[in-house]
């Protein structure tokens, strides 16, 4: 069953809005990050690196076919916790979605609603953009 991306996004915004300070919002990201399932050590190879990040990020995305419908699962990990929290947000809205949904989803709008567009340093923002690009590229290949 494919989850509704908009509902997930709204839930994330609700969660963030419960906290006023950026320290507490980082706290949310850190909690997400701590719960992020790990990537196998064998997958932490150059081929899976996402460049543009100050911290190290590895990401793998796999198409999954069931009942004639393709969805894409992806998993990623970083050595920095806040980045892991950002990965968790991307997973919530992207993983398990159809390529069409992935390409159509307004990620910039979500980041803006979460205030992340203003609070991420440009280095981290580049890394996030790198991950989104990689997911979308893969999605486009499976349409």
């Amino acid at each position, binding site marked *: 069953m494919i989850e509704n991306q908009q509902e997930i996004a709204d839930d994330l915004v609700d969660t963030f809005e419960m906290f006023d300070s950026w320290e507490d919002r980082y706290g949310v990201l850190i909690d997400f990050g701590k719960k992020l399932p790990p990537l196998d050590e064998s997958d932490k190879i150059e081929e899976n690196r996402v460049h543009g990040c100050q911290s190290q990020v590895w990401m793998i995305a796999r198409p999954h076919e069931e009942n004639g419908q393709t969805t894409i699962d992806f998993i990623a990990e970083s050595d920095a*916790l806040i980045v892991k929290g950002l990965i968790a947000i991307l997973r919530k809205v992207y993983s398990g979605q159809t390529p069409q949904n992935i390409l159509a989803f307004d990620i910039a709008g979500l980041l803006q609603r979460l205030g992340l567009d203003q609070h991420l*340093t440009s280095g981290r923002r580049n890394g996030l953009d790198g991950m989104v690009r990689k997911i979308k590229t893969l999605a486009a290949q499976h349409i």
Partner: protein
Amino acid sequence: MFDVQKIRADFPILQLQVRDKPLVYLDNAATSQKPQQVLDALNHYYTAQNANIHRAVHYLSETATRAYSESRESVRALLNAAHESEIIFTRGTTEAINLVAHSWGLQNLKAGDEILLSAMEHHSNIVPWQIVCEKTGAQIRVIPINDAGEILFDEYENLLQSGHVKFIGVCHISNALGTVNPVKEMIAKAHEVGAKVLIDGAQSVPHAKVDVQDLDADFYAFSGHKICAPTGIGALYGKAELLNAMPPYQGGGDMISSVTWEKTEYNVLPHKFEAGTPDIAGVIGLAAAIDYVTKIGLENIAAHEAQLLDYATKEVQSIEDFQIVGRAKNKASILSFVIPGAHPQDIGALLDARGVAIRTGHHCTQPLMKRLGLSATARASFAFYNTEDEVDVFVEATKNARKMLL
């Protein structure tokens, strides 16, 4: 009398609130903030002095030319160079080192020659020499350090005995560790084997009195922006005999005395190395900054910063798992650290949420990080306008970050 609150009032940016918190700016090793006196000098230049310097006959050009050359005297006095002509304005330390590497290096180095660089050099004192080595066949040898981040002087002396060492590049103060290197002794040893020495003074000039004649440095480079001046301006000191013998680094206007299609005669020092319209405003801003810190007194600045470093070094002991990186006995006001299990980037982000600005990463010293077995550190660096109260905010914020991340 050194009154830190009075000094802080000179810096408009220090009154800022960031992330709804009072700014605690502890990224001074990256760049310093600018006092109103420097901002006023820039404003005055553009509102009352702006014209291109040299050659023109009109009033404004004469005013700007005079201000520009008086600024060179300020830099000469700051470094206690013997002559104004030994001060070359550059974009900063990086350009100054590139100038020496490309001009002196390409002229004087050949295959088999050795360049010694310390293990704690900034990339800007590594990469220009690698480029020169590729072109000349010279080789870089690394002066090793101990785990505290101090140069192993015996090893340095051994390296000098190879008979091939022509040049030594070393930072006066390490930007990543705060180590103050024994550059005077290193220069003396280098001169015994006939090698020339460049001191990267990016971190030292803002924090201590430097005397290039006492050090007997052949070249000394620094950046204005770390000593309260604008970005994009710095200077290279070089002994006149060396600079005179070196070919120009860049060609253009101002660096010539006559040009024909057949042959160009170069200008005298310092103009030979200042091609094109220089950063006149930056130079004037640099002079204002030098005037500002000189009036406070570099000795007073050094004393205040030493006190801050001592206080911070003591206070961080209350943070569990806090490990200081760089424990040299002779250290400037740079506190590099790691908390195992917490990524420096996360520590930096959480401190930023409390308005505390520090730097995280490899500090442009990747070979040093590798030597220390680290990929990155977090770094707080103190300036004369910082206070013990700010150290307290930093310590509390770091305690909190640790709690959130571990």
